[in-house]
């Protein structure tokens, strides 16, 4: 046994070592590992949370919300923590609308945690926020207030995350997505969070809002018109496009397919079809641009059936017209009666390159460049892949190439827009979260396709096609005139033509003078009457009537002019004289004088007084030859003349 002094020294030494160890450890913890333990302490007391950024909204051109982001909640209940189970049960049933028996079963099973997925709106869960034992988990979700309106175009988000997966939600994802924020939340020892606004590290920045070019009212008219048409015609599907030819803005896009999911495909962009006779105008444009046809040139209609020679070996191809035509057909008349035979004959004077380039210039065979993702380019083969005689005639009749309804609308827009092709647009404005405009759409010219003179002549061809004796007469309104062309094509599916199935279409410019709307109506495989003039054309008329009657549709009514020459109407469409309203311009003024040539209006058969008034309103001077009923004019009806030109009127 050691002496006491030695023991004391040993104990002191032991204490000394202990103190030294503590000091060393303290130095290690505080100095060497200080930062690490500091971070650990912060981690235990605080929690970094990502603050989700609200996704930008989509509006129509007038500010009607089409897609917005809202906070939704899932509800968790811990029955053991509830102070009044009965009261909470009633509150849950009343506020959330969950079925009472099902919720009662959950409580009866004495579960420790009841989860109600919902999702529930902030309004629904408001009364539950202060209830102890009820836990809310919030998240942003996309909400479409107008339900299915324009949904194929708007698209949707991925089911598991707030990223656009289809349609404009996808293509505009980078614009709509905001930047997430970050916050530090304080926790107590039990891990419960305290809100602490002073600890927000970075505020979330909401995404930008986008104003689309779509007009919700016109969209509804288009969708309803299409639904009714498909139902009445028992058709397989269809598309409708409204486009503003002066800006290229797409105003309405409706698509329907009988087969498929609840939300149809945006087939206006994705599904090319063979346009049939609506494409005859583009071959006519090539003929005029290359000066291959004169006004007086005519071909025979072969009484509706023609065996076209396709090679030197005597092989022929049968081409037929739906309505046999007699006598010579000029180019204008061929368009008016939609003669396949005449167009095939006229097109033989075109070189394949000339025809191809014109179709290409009108935008066929290439995407329009709009904002919609996965847009089809259509189908247009290069001339070196053609069977020269065969393909040239097919293209003149609107076969052997595919166009999307939007491409067709843009091409007709070029005709309305004096020959300048504009890129179709779906985005009108982009605004940041504070309302500052970041982007505003301006018309984007792609190219000049034809001269303004040729565009005017093409419009005159269209005037004939919806006039008396034209295939599109059924589209014509009574008080306002439009231009248009019908199309009926055998359906091309899976690489071959399906006999007995047709695509009926109609392309219109409204109004006839200074068009404000391009309308494309396409009906897939209508049952019964299948001609475009009997199916798509009346749908166009009905929609235009609704658009005119609705004060919310953006048509510049001040620029509408009541038609000068109402065509003779079939009895069921005519209006009794006492019901016919008078459209008044007050005070009465002549139409806006134009420096551009205008077509001379047809006044044959009218009284001298009426004819003079019509010509004066267009800005022409009148030289009278005789009295009574007008028999002819010079320049004749349809010819272009500058305002101020003297028009000689012969009457008997």
């Amino acid at each position, binding site marked *: 046994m050691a002496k006491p002094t030695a023991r004391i020294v040993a104990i002191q030494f032991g204490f000394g070592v202990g103190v030294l160890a503590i000091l060393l450890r303290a130095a290690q913890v505080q100095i060497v590992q200080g930062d690490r333990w500091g971070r650990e302490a912060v981690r235990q007391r605080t929690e970094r949370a990502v603050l989700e950024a609200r996704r930008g909204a989509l509006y129509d051109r007038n500010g009607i919300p089409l897609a917005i982001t809202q906070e939704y909640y899932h509800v968790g209940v811990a029955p053991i923590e509830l102070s009044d189970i009965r009261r909470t049960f009633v509150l849950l049933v009343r506020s959330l609308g969950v079925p009472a028996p099902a919720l009662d079963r959950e409580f009866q099973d004495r579960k420790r945690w009841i989860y109600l997925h919902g999702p529930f709106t902030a309004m629904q869960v408001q009364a539950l926020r202060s209830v102890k034992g009820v836990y809310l988990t919030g998240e942003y979700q996309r909400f479409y207030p107008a339900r299915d309106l324009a949904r194929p175009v708007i698209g949707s988000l991925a089911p598991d995350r707030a990223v656009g997966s289809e349609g404009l939600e996808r293509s505009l994802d980078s614009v709509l997505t905001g930047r997430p924020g970050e916050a530090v939340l304080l926790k107590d020892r039990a891990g419960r969070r305290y809100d602490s606004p002073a600890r927000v590290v970075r505020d979330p920045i909401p995404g930008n809002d986008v104003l689309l070019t779509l007009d919700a009212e016109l969209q509804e008219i288009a969708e309803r018109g299409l639904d009714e048409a498909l139902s009445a015609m028992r058709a397989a599907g269809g598309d409708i496009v409204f486009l503003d030819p002066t800006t290229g803005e797409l105003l309405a896009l409706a698509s329907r397919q009988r087969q498929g999911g609840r939300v149809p495909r945006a087939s206006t962009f994705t599904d090319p079809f063979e346009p049939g006779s609506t494409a005859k105008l583009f071959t006519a444009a090539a003929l005029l641009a290359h000066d291959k046809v004169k006004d007086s040139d005519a071909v025979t209609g072969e009484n509706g059936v023609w065996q076209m020679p396709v090679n030197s070996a005597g092989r022929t191809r049968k081409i037929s017209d739906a309505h046999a035509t007699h006598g010579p057909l000029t180019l204008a008349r061929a368009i008016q009666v939609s003669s396949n035979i005449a167009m095939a004959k006229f097109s033989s004077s075109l070189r394949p390159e000339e025809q191809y380039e014109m179709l290409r210039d009108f935008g066929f065979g290439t995407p329009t460049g709009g904002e919609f993702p996965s847009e089809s380019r259509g189908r247009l083969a290069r001339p070196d892949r053609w069977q020269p005689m065969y393909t040239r005639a097919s293209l003149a009749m609107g076969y052997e190439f595919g166009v999307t309804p939007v491409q067709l609308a843009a091409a007709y827009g070029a005709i309305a827009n004096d020959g300048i092709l504009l890129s179709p647009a779906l985005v009108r404005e982009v605004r940041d979260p504070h309302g500052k405009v970041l982007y505003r759409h301006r018309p984007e010219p792609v190219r000049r396709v034809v001269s303004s003179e040729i565009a005017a002549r093409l419009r005159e061809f269209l005037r004939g096609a919806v006039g008396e004796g034209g295939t599109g007469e059924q589209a014509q309104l009574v008080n306002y005139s439009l231009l248009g062309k019908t199309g009926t094509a055998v359906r091309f599916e899976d690489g071959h033509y399906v006999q007995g199935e047709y695509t009926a279409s109609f392309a219109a410019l409204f109004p006839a003078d200074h068009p404000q709307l391009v309308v494309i109506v396409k009906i897939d495989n209508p049952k019964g009457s299948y001609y475009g003039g009997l199916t798509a054309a009346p749908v166009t008329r009905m929609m*235009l009537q609704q658009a005119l009657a609705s004060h919310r549709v953006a048509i510049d009514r001040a620029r509408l002019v009541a038609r000068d020459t109402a065509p003779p109407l079939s009895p069921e469409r005519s209006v009794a004289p006492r019901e016919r*309203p008078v459209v008044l311009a007050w005070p009465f003024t002549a139409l806006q004088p134009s420096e551009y040539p205008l077509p001379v209006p047809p006044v044959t058969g009218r009284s001298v007084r009426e004819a003079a008034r019509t010509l004066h309103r267009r800005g022409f001077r009148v030289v009278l030859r005789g009295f009574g009923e007008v028999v002819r004019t010079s320049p004749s009806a349809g010819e272009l003349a500058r305002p101020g030109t003297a028009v000689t009127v012969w009457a008997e």
Partner: protein
Amino acid sequence: MAWLLLFLCVLLAVTARQAEGFRVARRVRDLRDERAALEARRAELERRIRAGASRQVLVPKVERTLGLHEPADTEFVLFTVPHSGQGTP
């Protein structure tokens, strides 16, 4: 003694400030929740108004109950309002 009093005062001030911070945070959270609830209500009302005023709902209803119909272009009159001045639409 004075040091102790000073220490207690500072302690009280810090505690009160923190308590006030939490109170304000709760108030901000409540207001944010209330705003979210009101926005949800507004969106729901807008949806219902939009649905109620849509052609899909309205047109069949007025056709059935009032005997009205979509007008043809012969059944309405557009009056051209004269321009008020040069360059003014």
